[in-house]
């Protein structure tokens, strides 16, 4: 056995030989297959293929897809596409880009047009790989280049679709914008088929739903002549248009909120408390997203990114503000639910609250006298809540705040959402390496101190009260539809949790919030409507701590950037709320006087339109009733 070679054949020398032979046969067959194929390609088809290679005629052309539209809840188009003309240069016979550019510049100067200086010309050009020379050219330039095509070898004009944002600044923060994919984005991307030159979403919904909106590039193999012009198509995959996105946004409310804010800095978030649909999301100041169409110029980008008012920040989801008195509902709910107080529990307010040697002031210097929970919320008595804060302690307040959806991002369909901050003892210890002070809990109870919320979180927290205790994920996207209108995906309401507060306690707070707007002495009395249906809460968030001495307090009111932020949150109608509005105006002073009127405009707009729709509908409704009567009763 050993003679044959080794123990591989330990059990059956015959089988070993057979297998060895079979292996040789497999190798022989495989290699002869390759030889035959080589013979076929190089000798039989050699002449033909050589000719094809000499013509160098087969070229690949990418077909850019059309981006899906973005619409509001009533199918009004917010982001549309329009054609844009670009000048490209395809290096073939001529490879000298600079020379070509000089020729174009010459043409332009004859008509007193200017050619933009190209910041990034590729160091070397590859044959047949198009180089973009100028984007989004005017009709005049287009005509000029087309008529001089013969003098400009390799130069072509290309049509590409670019975005048009119909509402400009008003929806810029939500819709976002697109741009050419950057090198870093290409490297980071591991899943999608993105290649150099593709247009992708860079901000807002455009970025968040980019993979749906973008569509798929097509491709075409074309045979070209010596000048590089396509003469024949050899095969073509059309591009796939991206899906349309239908948002939950109501453009009319968005418009109302946007114009109500004016040029002040701030944000408005409007929600449907029954399902978490976002009806409006405004952030001011804003920017013109159409600047980004076809590539933003260096100067524009410079101005935009260096603006001290940060127009590119979406304040409604990433602006973090102290909640001020709007936070009192959290403290009230915690105290009621923990059984520390009843609705009748009284505290006496003489305008100050003492803890050790520190004095905490009520906003009403002369005090509110004896107050129960209802009055404390209606009149926003600080001393009452200082007492609750002392009873509760920071960690219990934090637990309820989290149940209201504060302190963590809510998961809205937008990039860069912030979570705000709900401090606990542990947080301060690990973050600031300091132990918690009781005085901090006292400030916290009226929404001052470390805690921070976003306008969206504030609206969402009040929505949970309004709907009786369900925490929804705020949704900006209603559904995705294909080009032909088929629904691709529907986004349903998503419950994120239930408020750990009993219905009767929720009702006590809701009742008090109604009082804020509808009872004499309420801080939101300005919002009272004939229908008596609005509930709300004012808030005034200190930008810097309230100075202890009187002189400083006066000085503070003078400087604009130290002035307080004005907050207002409300919902309506009482009993069966359909809309929640939160408003934050930066450095605008008192919530009741500055922020509440903005909320009022939104609420009014919502209900006046609802009324209008109801007056249109009865005709139909009556018809239905009439029909019903005709059917015989069983």
């Amino acid at each position, binding site marked *: 056995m050993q003679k044959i070679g*080794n*123990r591989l054949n330990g059990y059956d020398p015959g089988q070993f030989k057979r297998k060895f032979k079979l292996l040789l046969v497999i*190798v022989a067959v495989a290699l002869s297959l390759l030889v035959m194929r*080589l013979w076929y390609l190089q000798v039989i088809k*050699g002449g*033909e293929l050589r000719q*094809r290679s000499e013509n160098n005629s087969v070229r690949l052309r990418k077909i850019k897809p059309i981006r899906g539209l973005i619409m509001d809840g009533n199918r009004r188009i917010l982001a549309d596409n329009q054609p844009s003309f670009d000048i490209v240069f395809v290096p073939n016979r001529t490879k000298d880009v600079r020379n070509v550019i000089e020729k174009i510049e010459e043409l332009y100067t004859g008509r007193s047009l200017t050619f933009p200086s190209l910041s990034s010309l590729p160091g070397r050009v590859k044959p047949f790989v198009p180089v973009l020379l100028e984007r989004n050219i005017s009709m005049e330039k287009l005509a000029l280049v087309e008529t001089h095509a013969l003098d400009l070898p390799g130069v072509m004009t290309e049509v590409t679709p670019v975005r048009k944002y119909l509402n400009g600044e008003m929806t810029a923060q939500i819709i976002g914008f697109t741009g050419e994919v950057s090198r870093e984005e290409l490297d980071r991307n591991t899943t999608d088929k993105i290649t150099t030159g593709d247009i992708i979403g860079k901000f807002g919904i455009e970025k968040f739903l980019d993979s749906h909106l973008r569509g798929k590039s097509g491709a075409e193999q074309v045979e070209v002549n010596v000048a590089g012009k396509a003469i024949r198509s050899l095969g073509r995959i059309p591009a796939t248009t991206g899906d349309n996105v239908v948002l939950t946004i109501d453009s009319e409310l968005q418009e109302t909120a946007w114009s109500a804010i004016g040029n002040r800095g701030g944000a408005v978030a409007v929600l449907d408390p029954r399902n978490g649909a976002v009806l409006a999301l405004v952030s001011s100041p804003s920017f013109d997203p159409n600047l980004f169409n076809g590539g933003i110029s260096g100067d524009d980008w410079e101005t935009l990114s260096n603006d001290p008012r940060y127009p590119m920040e979406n304040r409604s989801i990433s602006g973090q503000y102290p909640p001020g008195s709007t936070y009192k509902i959290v403290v009230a709910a915690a105290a009621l639910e923990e059984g520390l107080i009843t609705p009748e529990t009284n505290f006496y307010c003489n305008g100050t609250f003492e803890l050790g040697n520190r004095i905490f002031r009520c906003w009403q210097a002369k005090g509110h006298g004896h107050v129960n929970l209802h009055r404390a919320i209606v009149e926003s008595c600080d001393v009452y809540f200082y007492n609750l804060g002392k009873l509760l302690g920071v960690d219990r307040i934090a637990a309820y705040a989290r149940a209201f959806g504060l302190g963590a991002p809510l998961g809205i369909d937008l990039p860069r959402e912030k979570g705000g901050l709900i401090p606990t003892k542990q947080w301060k210890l690990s973050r600031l390496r300091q132990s918690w002070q009781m005085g901090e809990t006292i400030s916290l109870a009226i929404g001052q101190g470390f805690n921070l919320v976003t306008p969206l979180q504030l609206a969402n927290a009040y929505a949970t009260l309004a709907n009786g205790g369900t925490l929804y994920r705020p949704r900006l996207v209603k559904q995705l539809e294909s080009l032909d209108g088929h629904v691709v995906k529907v986004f349903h309401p998503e419950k994120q949790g239930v408020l750990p507060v009993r219905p009767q306690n929720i009702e006590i707070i809701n009742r008090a919030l109604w009082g804020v707007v509808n009872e004499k002495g309420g801080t939101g009395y300005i919002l009272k409507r004939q229908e008596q249906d609005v509930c709300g809460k004012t808030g005034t968030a200190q930008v810097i701590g309230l100075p202890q001495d009187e002189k400083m307090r006066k000085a503070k009111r003078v400087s604009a950037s130290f002035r307080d932020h004005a907050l207002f949150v409300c919902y309506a109608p009482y009993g069966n709320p359909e809309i929640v509005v939160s408003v934050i105006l930066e450095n605008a002073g008192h919530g009741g006087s500055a922020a509440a009127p903005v909320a009022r405009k939104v609420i009014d707009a919502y209900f006046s339109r609802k009324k209008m729709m109801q007056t249109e509908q009865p005709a139909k409704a009556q018809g239905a009733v009439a029909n019903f009567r005709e059917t015989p009763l069983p």
Partner: protein
Amino acid sequence: MIKLDRRLILNFDWTLFILVLIISGIGLVNIYSTGFSLTDPRQTPLYIKQIQWILIGIAGMAFAFFIDYRFLSRHAYILYAISIILLLVVYMAGYATRGSQRWIAIGGFTFQPSEPVKLTIILALAKYFDHHQIGRGYHLNELFIPFLIVIIPFLFILKQPDLGTGLILFILFLSIVFFVGLDWKSLLIAAAGGLILTPIGWYFLRDYQRERILTFFSPERDPLGSGYHIIQSMIAVGSGGLFGKGFLKGSQTQLKFLPEQQTDFVFSVFAEEWGFLGGIILLIMFLFLILWGLKIMTHSKDYIGALIALGITMLIFWEAFINIGMVLGILPVVGIPLPFLSYGGSSMVVLMTAVGLLMNISVRRFILQSS
């Protein structure tokens, strides 16, 4: 462990050594040609880098040659485990380029751990079958552990995703199992199972991988991607004709029509410039290399040596066959490098090391015979 035996030098397998050097030399000349025009002068030319890789490969070859392969095979499972850990590192913290995560960076180098896995599973499988000789064909249940040895790296590599390397691992497994023997009933069951599993495997493939397979059957499906590769590659090969266009004269190559021309499609560059004649010579050299490997297998003094030699030879054979078949348009486009010709450090170093192991087995038959 390392005994510098006089017989080691005396019986050195010069044929194998020189053959591999010639093939690598051809590869080098070819890579020089792909980088001849239009490259960025600031970067180190690829052929210089490839020379570095060949030198490192020869060091690996020496390492694998001097250490007794029975020592290596005793530690086959440890080597296997290390290579799996490297794959795990890729999975967790790998370096991704354009859609797949295959590399890890060590110092200035990037390194592809799926390459050494090819060698370590050969060692691990050889060790397993050497330990479990049963004197008859294996039943399917007796192949569970060997299957596990292959499927673990296979799944990691498929996840990267790298269909080609995964495929090679699987084919290596089948080649070795074929040789150690499968009993008839098991063979039938395995064949039936394979038929059933194919559609399931299809389900697990990435979209682009499916697309490549579909494109193989009709290249016009994807004029942007692999269809374009195949067509341009066939034009390049065919235009070479009988004698080729000559060194540095391949227009498809020089005008960069060929995609991946230093790596997976390197054979089309060779065929364009050296023609049918050059292609035949290269194929004959590969044939010679494979036959030489099989000869080493039959002359090995022990079972495990024979199995290792078989595995390495089969690795070279299948990689060469699948790669060239793909370039010539008779096999689907799956990313498998052409041994010793494709540019790429990991593949070159691993293959050189594998050849060192072959030489090791070749030379030790004399030593083992007399001891």
